[in-house]
C-alpha cells in the first residue's frame, strides 16, 4: 500500500484538542460502580470542570468530590486533606466505594496515595466500620500522560486489581465494554440475558448516568456494577473486552487472565455488522446456544437495510474522529456500507490505531484512509479540507468544522454538548448499526434535498 499524503510535521502547540484529560476518564469509570463516589485528589477546579463537562452531556447529577488542595497543601503535601475528604465523603454519602484518582498537581508534588490511603484505613478503623467499610480504590491519572480513555481503562483495571479476589469458579462472564453510552450498556445487558448468560459489566453507567425522575434526591444514583460481583470476577468463566487500541497488558481483562487464568476474548467495539458478528459468535460459544431469534432478525434487518440504503451513500467521503476504539468501530462500519472513510483521527496515541483501522476495513476499501494519532482539530482541519468530505462523524467538538465546510456532522460518542439525548445514542450491535445507518442515510438525503433546486418530496 502506498501512502498518498505525507504525514505533516507536528506542531508544538495544541489547538482545539481532540481528547480530554486522564482524571475525567477515571471519574466516568468510577461512576459506573454501585455506591461509588469519584474523588479527585487535587485542586477544586479539576472536579468542578469535569462535573460541568460530564453533566452537559448526560444531563444527570455528577458529584465528584475533591481534596480541594490549596497552596500550603501543595507545599507540605495533600495527605491530610485527602484523609479529611475521605472522612467527609464517608459521612455524607452512603458509599460502597470511594474511587480516588490523582491529578497532575498531586502526581507532581509526589503524594504517595497508596500509603496515605493505607494510613487512613489504619487510623480511621472505627469510622470505616461505622460506615460499612467502603472500598477505597485508587488510580494514578496524571493528566500529562495519556488521555481520558487511558484514564478510563486504567481505572477499570485498578478496580479489578484492587477488588477482585480468588474465588470459586462460577458461570458468570465479565464484560469490559470500554467507554460506551448508557443506551449501549442497557442493550449489552439485554443481549447477555437473551443468551441465558450471567454477566457482570464493568463499568455500568446505564442507570447511574441515565436515571429516572425521582421523588427524592438520591445522594448517589442507583445502579452501577455491584462491588460483590467485581470481587467475584476472579472466578469468571470468561472475560470479554472491547478494544483494539489497547494491549491486554494494560487492561482489566488482561489482568483477570494473568492473575486468575480467566480466558479473555479481546474484541473490537462491536460497531457495524462484522464486529457485532464477532461479539455474537463469542456469546454463542460461551452459551452453547444459537443466536436468539430476536437478534438474528435484527441482524437480518440490518443487512436488508444495508441493501436498501446503499445507493444514497455509496462512495461518500467521511472524516471520523474521537476516541480510538470508537473511531476504529465506526470506520469498519462505514467501510461495510460503502461510505469511504478518508481520514481517521484521534487525540490518543496508542500506537495501534492504524493497524486496528486496517483490520476492520480489510477487504472493503479500495484504498486505506489517512490515519492520524495524537492530533488536534487544527491538524484535522488542515488535512481534511483537501479531502473534500461529504460528512463528518464524531462528537460535538467537530461542529465548527462541519459549519465551516457546510458538511453535516453525525454525532456519536462523547461529548455531545450541542444536541439533546446524546447519552441515549446507541452505537453497538446490530441495533446500534441500524440506528447509525438510518441516521447517516437520512443525513445524506437531507443534504441532497436541501441543496436540490427541485425540492423533491419523494426520494
Amino acid at each position, binding site marked *: 500500500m502506498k501512502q498518498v499524503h505525507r504525514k505533516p510535521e507536528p*506542531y*508544538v*502547540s*495544541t*489547538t482545539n*484538542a481532540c*481528547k*480530554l*484529560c486522564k482524571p*475525567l476518564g477515571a471519574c466516568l469509570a468510577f461512576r459506573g460502580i454501585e455506591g461509588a463516589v469519584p474523588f479527585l485528589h*487535587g*485542586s*477544586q*477546579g*479539576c*472536579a*468542578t*470542570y*469535569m*462535573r*460541568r463537562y460530564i*453533566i452537559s452531556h448526560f*444531563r*444527570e*447529577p*455528577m458529584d465528584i*468530590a*475533591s*481534596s*480541594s488542595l*490549596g*497552596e500550603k*497543601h*501543595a507545599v507540605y503535601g495533600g495527605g491530610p486533606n*485527602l484523609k*479529611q*475528604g*475521605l472522612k*467527609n465523603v464517608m*459521612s*455524607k*454519602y452512603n458509599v460502597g466505594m470511594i474511587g480516588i484518582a490523582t491529578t*497532575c*498537581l498531586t502526581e*507532581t*508534588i509526589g503524594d504517595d496515595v497508596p500509603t496515605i490511603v493505607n494510613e487512613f484505613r489504619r487510623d480511621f478503623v472505627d469510622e470505616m466500620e461505622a460506615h460499612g467499610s467502603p472500598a477505597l480504590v485508587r488510580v494514578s491519572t*496524571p*493528566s*500529562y*500522560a495519556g*488521555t481520558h480513555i487511558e484514564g478510563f481503562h486504567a481505572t477499570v483495571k485498578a478496580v479489578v486489581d484492587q477488588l477482585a479476589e480468588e474465588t470459586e469458579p462460577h458461570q458468570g462472564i465479565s464484560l469490559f465494554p470500554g467507554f460506551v453510552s448508557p443506551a449501549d450498556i442497557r442493550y449489552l445487558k439485554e443481549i447477555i440475558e437473551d443468551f441465558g448468560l450471567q454477566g457482570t459489566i464493568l463499568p455500568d453507567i446505564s442507570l447511574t448516568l441515565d*436515571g429516572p*425522575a*425521582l*421523588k*427524592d*434526591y438520591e*445522594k448517589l444514583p442507583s445502579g452501577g456494577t455491584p462491588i460483590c460481583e467485581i470481587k467475584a470476577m476472579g472466578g469468571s468463566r470468561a472475560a470479554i473486552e472491547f478494544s483494539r487500541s489497547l494491549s491486554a497488558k494494560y487492561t482489566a481483562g488482561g489482568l483477570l487472565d494473568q492473575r486468575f487464568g480467566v480466558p479473555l476474548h479481546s474484541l473490537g467495539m462491536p460497531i457495524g455488522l462484522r464486529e457485532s458478528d464477532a461479539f455474537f459468535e463469542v456469546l454463542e460459544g460461551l452459551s452453547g446456544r444459537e443466536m436468539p431469534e430476536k437478534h438474528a432478525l435484527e441482524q437480518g434487518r440490518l443487512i436488508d437495510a444495508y441493501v436498501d440504503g446503499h445507493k444514497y451513500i455509496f462512495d461518500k467521503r467521511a472524516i471520523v474522529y474521537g476516541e480510538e476504539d470508537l473511531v476504529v468501530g465506526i470506520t469498519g462500519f462505514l467501510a461495510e456500507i460503502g461510505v469511504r472513510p478518508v481520514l481517521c483521527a484521534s*487525540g490518543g496515541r496508542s500506537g495501534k490505531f492504524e493497524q486496528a483501522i486496517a483490520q476492520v476495513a480489510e477487504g472493503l476499501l479500495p484504498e486505506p484512509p489517512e490515519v492520524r494519532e495524537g492530533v488536534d482539530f487544527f491538524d484535522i482541519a488542515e488535512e481534511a479540507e483537501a479531502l473534500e468530505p461529504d460528512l463528518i462523524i464524531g462528537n460535538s467538538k467537530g461542529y*465548527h468544522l462541519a459549519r465551516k465546510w457546510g458538511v453535516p456532522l453525525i454525532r456519536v460518542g462523547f461529548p455531545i454538548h450541542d444536541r439533546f439525548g446524546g447519552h441515549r445514542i446507541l452505537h453497538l450491535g446490530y441495533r446500534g448499526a441500524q440506528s447509525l445507518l438510518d441516521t447517516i442515510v437520512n443525513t445524506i438525503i437531507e443534504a441532497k434535498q436541501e441543496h436540490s433546486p427541485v425540492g423533491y418530496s419523494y426520494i
Partner: protein
Amino acid sequence: MKVWKIPAYMGIQAPKRQQVGQASCLSHQYSRAGPWPSLDLSFGGHGPPTWLNGVRTMTTQIFAERQDQIHRKGDQPFQMSCDKESLAGAVSQRACVFCGSRVVLYPIADALHLVHGPIGCAAYTWDIRGALSSGPALHRLSFSTDLQETDVIFGAEEKLYKALVELIDRHEPKAAFVYSTCIVGIIGDDLEAVSKRVEREKGIPVIPVQSEGFKGNKRAGYNAACKAMLRLIGTGDTSNVSELSVNILGDFNLAGEIWIIREYFERMGLEVVANITGDGRVDDIRRAHGAALNVVQCSGSTMDLAKMMEEEYGTPFMRVSYFGVEDMAESLYNVARFFADKDPEIMQRTADLVKSELTTLYPALEKYRRALSGKKAAIYVGGAFKAFSLVKAFRLLGMDVVLVGSQTGTEEDYRELHEITDEGTIIVDDSNPLELAAFLQEKDVDIFVGGVKERPIAYKLGVGFCDHNHERKEALEGFVGMLNFAKEVYSTVMSPVWRFVPRKGEGRSLRAPAPLRSVSNR
C-alpha cells in the same frame, strides 16, 4: 386600552444617592409590594409540601464545619462565615484560580489565550461561554501547550516559547495571555521571562497570568486577570477620548448583552472606550485609562481592576447592575448624575430612555407576572452581586425568594442579602449538591436559578430551572433582559411536565385519559 402608569421613582425623578468611587451596594429600599400597581391575584395551592422528608434529612446534609456558612433569616442576628477554602470532600460548586482568570480574560476576542499546562485546563474551557464578539473570534479557539511527562520532568519553558511563537505567527493576535496552571506552579517555569522574550521578538504584549489553580479560589483568579489587564492599560493613545466617556467593566457579552448596555450609554450621549471584557479588544483596553468613569458590574470579577485604575490613573468607578428593572434604571441614573455637571442634558436623556424602555417593557411583562406571582424561587450563583439583582427581579415578578447563595460572596455581600430578603430565607456560602437538594426540597421551590452544575439537582427533583450563568444563550441584561428573564422563568415554571414528576406524588392531579373502549378483566 389599559394605560400603564410608570412608577414615580422609575420615571423622571431620579433617585439620589450613590457616591462615585464608593463600593456601596445599590438601593436599600425594597418595598415588598414592589413598584407595580398591586394586582389582585390569589395563588392558592401552596400549602405545606407533601414531601416533608426534605426537612427531616436537612440537618444530616450539612457538615458541622459548614454550619456557620449557612444563615436562616429570622433565626438569629446575622452572622456568617465565608471566603474560606472549600471543605475537602464536600463537592463544592466552586472552581479554581485558573477558572477565575479564564472567565474574565476569555472574551478579549483579538488576543491569543494560551493555557500553559496539561490538556484538561484548555479542553474544559474551549468555547464554553457565550461571550460574543462583533469581529475577531480568536478567543473561541482553545490553545494549550499540552504538557507531557518529559515537560514536567525537564521543564517546559522552551516548549512554551516555541508554542507562543508558532501561534503568534499563525494568528497575528494583538496581544497574548499566557495562563499558568497548577502544574506550572510546581515545576516553576518562569513565565515572566519567556513572555518578555517573546514580547521582544514579536512586538506585541505577552502577558503572563498567575492563575495556578491551587493558589486560592476563583476570586484570586479574578485578581490575577485584573493584574494582567492592568499591564495593558495605559499603553494606548487617549488624546481623542471624550470627557463624556466610560469603560464597561465586568460584563462578558453573554448572548450579546454588552451591546444592549453600550447602546443605552450611547443614547445617553456617552462614549464607551473599552469593553472589559465582553466583545473586548486589546487596543481599546490599552486606552481604557482615558475614560472618565469605570462602571463596574459583577463586583467580584473586575472590582480589583477598578480599584487599581483608581489608584494608578485616578479613574473613579461606580458599581452597577444591569439585571432587573430597578437596578438597570438606577445604574443608568447614577452614571448620568456623574456626568450631569459636564452635560446638563444627560439626566433628561436618561429619563427619556428609561421611560421609553419601561413603556414597552411593563405591558409585555404583565402576562408573566400574572402567571408567576406567588411562586417560590431559589438562587445559587457564582458572585453574590448578581444575587442581589435576581432577588429584586423575582420580586418584580411577584415571586418569593426562599434560598439565595453564592460560591464566592463576601461577608458584606451576605449582609446585604440578609437585608433585602424575607424572613425565613436561607442564605448560603459555597454550598454543595446535597445541601442544595435538601434546601430545594425543604422550601418546595418552583424554580432554581444557577449554572450547569445546579441544573441536574433541580431537574432530578422535578423543579424548574433557569440558567443564569456563563453558558446562557438568552440576554438577561438591560430592560429587554428583564423580559427575557421573565420568559425564561415562565417557560420552565409553567411547563406541564412538572405535573408528571414523582415529587408531586399524591398531588399529581392528571389521570390517564379515558379509554375509548374498555373491557373489564374478568
